[in-house]
């Protein structure tokens, strides 16, 4: 099989965000294989690259993987044949992919391989934040942190070339801020190159067992030690002989130029912008830092660069090194936060004062109008008494409203933690939940594990027919005979229910909760953002309303169901906002006073 890289005209592409720049960069650098598991903030790369692939007949092979471990292995395999490969996941996904990626440096690769990881300090587009920089050291792979869409675009071209030069994948970390930041991007002309794809057997490299793994580990350490001395990707601004140096990476590089203009002591410092963050380019840094009296490392999260600097240049530098003693290790570190900290440190008055904030209620997460999870959670809560119930929550749209589940940690923590609890909470009513995305990501194994370990548990799979939270990627549930699959695992019972008929689901939860063994309830209901035929019919033909004369203000629809399309008017009456209502009919079904009329124009479908 051969692939001809695209020949593109030198052109300006206006207004690309970070995700789009990576997609264009990959295309123009001749990527042949793209593997990913969708996750914000990097979920925007795949749809753009697919569109470009079609538009340019680029013949890129896509692997929409069910989890990051599979995606990582597949990407490594493609690269071993000589294909240029991009692997994409979010920060938490790197934990899942870490197993194979621990060995990719031992085995090495052939076709250039870029591992793009979306980080999210401040959890602006993720369920949480965590610092994955430490994986760069653990995998011992070069790490880059481009700070603009242009830099991301360029990093694809340069990264693939460097990856092939080293025979190692290149890590590219990109924050949510930079993923969603738009600027103008200049693209480059690409010369077509023909590649022959072939897997060349090399047991010494690829079979990493026992002493061979140890030998390859040694070779990787040696290679990276040389790399650290010979490669430096950094930019230096300001006088090199200033007593103060400031080192930035990622978002802080983006902010520092502006911060400098407000603090005189920083105006003439030596500013080192680390683009290649790992390994620390000690040979290039030594002449820049050896005569400094003070070094400030400005970075978000744990202080990875500060740690490396203190470890690797211990007893070499005489300067006072500051970092996490000044800047928090949590949160996004917005420009104003950095400015405030540095103003205080240098004794400069903070130059701005905004209007005072008002006590505006936070917009906590909610289910969308017409979301199938609304009825599902209502059913569980009605079936199990509040004081006794335990609900294991999982990552995904079903976790959006806080405090509905009792814990939210990571993919499949719902069923994972629940099966550990089950033997000890017989006096409580325990159920676990998870979406269809989570189920196929790893939940399937967790169900089998519960069966094999004879756990008593009711597990609900919320199947909205798509991986809704990250861009509505197709769900495996539309292609897999999941009922047969689960029965073959040996579950004590398998039942199906509609999320839009919570009364039936409530009865099922009550029934199964009494039984021993693993009971799976598969709760189906199309995502409100991707309506199916039933939903479309109802939207066209129904106009539900609340009859104030029948409404007893029990608040079941308003508070317990918590549909955002139901609000309270100035008279205290509950009403349905038809501009928001998706006509799912759940409020009509649960109303104990028959006060909600569906307003059907035609007979019910």
């Amino acid at each position, binding site marked *: 099989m051969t692939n001809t890289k695209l020949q593109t005209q030198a052109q300006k592409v206006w207004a690309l965000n970070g995700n789009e720049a990576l997609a264009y960069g990959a295309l123009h650098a001749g990527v042949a294989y793209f593997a990913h598991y969708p996750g914000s903030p990097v979920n925007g790369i795949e749809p753009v690259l697919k569109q470009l692939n079609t538009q340019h007949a680029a013949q890129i092979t896509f692997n929409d993987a069910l989890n990051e471990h599979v995606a990582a292995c597949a990407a490594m395999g493609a690269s071993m044949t000589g294909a240029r490969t991009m692997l994409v996941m979010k920060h938490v996904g790197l934990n899942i992919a870490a197993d194979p990626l621990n060995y990719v440096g031992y085995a090495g690769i052939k076709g250039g391989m870029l591992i793009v990881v979306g980080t999210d300090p401040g959890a602006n587009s993720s369920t949480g934040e965590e610092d994955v920089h430490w994986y760069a050291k653990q995998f011992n792979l070069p790490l880059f942190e481009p700070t603009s869409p242009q830099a991301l675009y360029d990093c694809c071209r340069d990264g693939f070339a460097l990856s092939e030069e080293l025979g190692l994948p290149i890590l590219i970390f990109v924050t949510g801020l930079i993923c969603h*930041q738009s600027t103008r991007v200049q693209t480059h002309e690409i010369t077509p190159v023909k590649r022959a794809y072939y897997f060349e057997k090399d047991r010494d490299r690829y079979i990493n067992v026992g002493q061979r793994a140890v030998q390859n580990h040694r070779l990787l350490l040696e290679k990276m030690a040389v790399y650290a001395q010979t490669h430096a990707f950094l930019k230096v601004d300001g006088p090199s002989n200033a007593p103060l140096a400031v080192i930035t990476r990622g978002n802080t590089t*983006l902010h520092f130029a502006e911060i400098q203009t407000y603090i005189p002591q920083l105006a003439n410092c030596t500013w080192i912008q680390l683009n290649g963050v790992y390994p620390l380019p000690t040979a290039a840094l030594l002449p820049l830092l050896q005569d400094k009296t003070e070094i400030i490392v400005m970075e978000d999260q744990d202080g990875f660069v500060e740690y490396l600097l203190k470890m690797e240049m211990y007893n070499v530098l005489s300067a006072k090194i500051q970092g996490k003693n000044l800047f928090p290790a949590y949160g996004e570190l917005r420009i*104003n936060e950095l400015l405030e900290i540095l103003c205080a440190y240098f004794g400069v008055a903070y130059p*701005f004062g905004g209007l005072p904030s008002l*006590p*505006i209620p936070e917009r906590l997460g*909610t289910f*969308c109008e017409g979301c199938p999870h609304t009825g599902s959670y209502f059913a569980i809560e009605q079936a199990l008494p509040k004081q006794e119930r335990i609900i294991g929550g999982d990552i995904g749209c079903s976790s959006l409203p806080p405090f509905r589940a009792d814990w939210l940690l990571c993919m499949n923590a719902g069923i994972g933690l629940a099966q550990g609890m089950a033997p000890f909470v017989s006096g409580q009513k325990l159920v676990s939940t998870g979406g269809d995305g989570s189920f196929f990501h790893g939940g399937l194994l967790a169900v089998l594990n519960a069966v094999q370990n004879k756990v008593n548990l009711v597990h609900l799979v919320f199947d909205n027919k798509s991986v809704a939270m990250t861009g509505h990627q197709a769900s495996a549930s539309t292609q897999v005979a999941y009922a047969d699959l689960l029965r073959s695992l040996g579950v004590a019972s398998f039942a199906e229910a509609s999320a839009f008929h919570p009364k039936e689901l409530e009865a099922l939860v009550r029934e199964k909760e009494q039984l021993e063994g693993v009971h799976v309830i598969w709760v189906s209901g199309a995502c409100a953002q991707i309506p199916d035929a039933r939903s479309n019919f109802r939207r066209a033909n129904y106009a539900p309303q609340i009859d104030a004369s029948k409404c007893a203000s029990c608040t079941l629809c308003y508070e317990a169901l918590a549909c*955002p399309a139901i609000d309270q008017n100035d008279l205290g009456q509950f009403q349905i906002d038809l501009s928001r209502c998706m006509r799912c009919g759940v409020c009509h079904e649960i109303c104990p006073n028959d006060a909600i009329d569906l307003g059907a124009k035609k007979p019910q479908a």
Partner: protein
Amino acid sequence: MKQELRILIAGVGGQGIHGFVRVLQQAMTEQGYEFISARYKGGAQSLGSVHAECKIFLSAAQANAQQSSQLIPGTLDILLGLERWETLRFLPFCHANTLIVADTFTEFPPGTKRSKDLPSIDTYFANLTNPLISRDFIQLAQEKGWSKSAVPILLFNEAIRSLGLTQYIQPLKP
């Protein structure tokens, strides 16, 4: 003339803020101005807080300097509010003379119990001392036969007209 224009657009999920930022960037680029923006989305849900922070560089010197895409509170020139509670949420980004252009659309955070101590939204707006343009832009768009996606464009055009910037920046076409 100002060196750069700092604009924050606030609203809730589903109002088209991200789409508007793309339109604005395209238009400013075509008019010869550099533009940078940072966008914050409220998770994959409707009615979550969404906002975007934008800088339009009106001078070449500013455009060529390395810039953060984030805005520092207290430095905003224009606050465009597509929903009134969200407009108020971003007041700390304003200084006393920041122009606020707000649609009258109001959506109290769903699932949130309203505190009895919380003043009404009308009271809050009545107490604002900033230059303020508040009107029903959704109705205005409907009267013109435009969809709701035209609303942020109408707010932006109102802002640049009010600040006398139309000699530098051409209004956007809905």
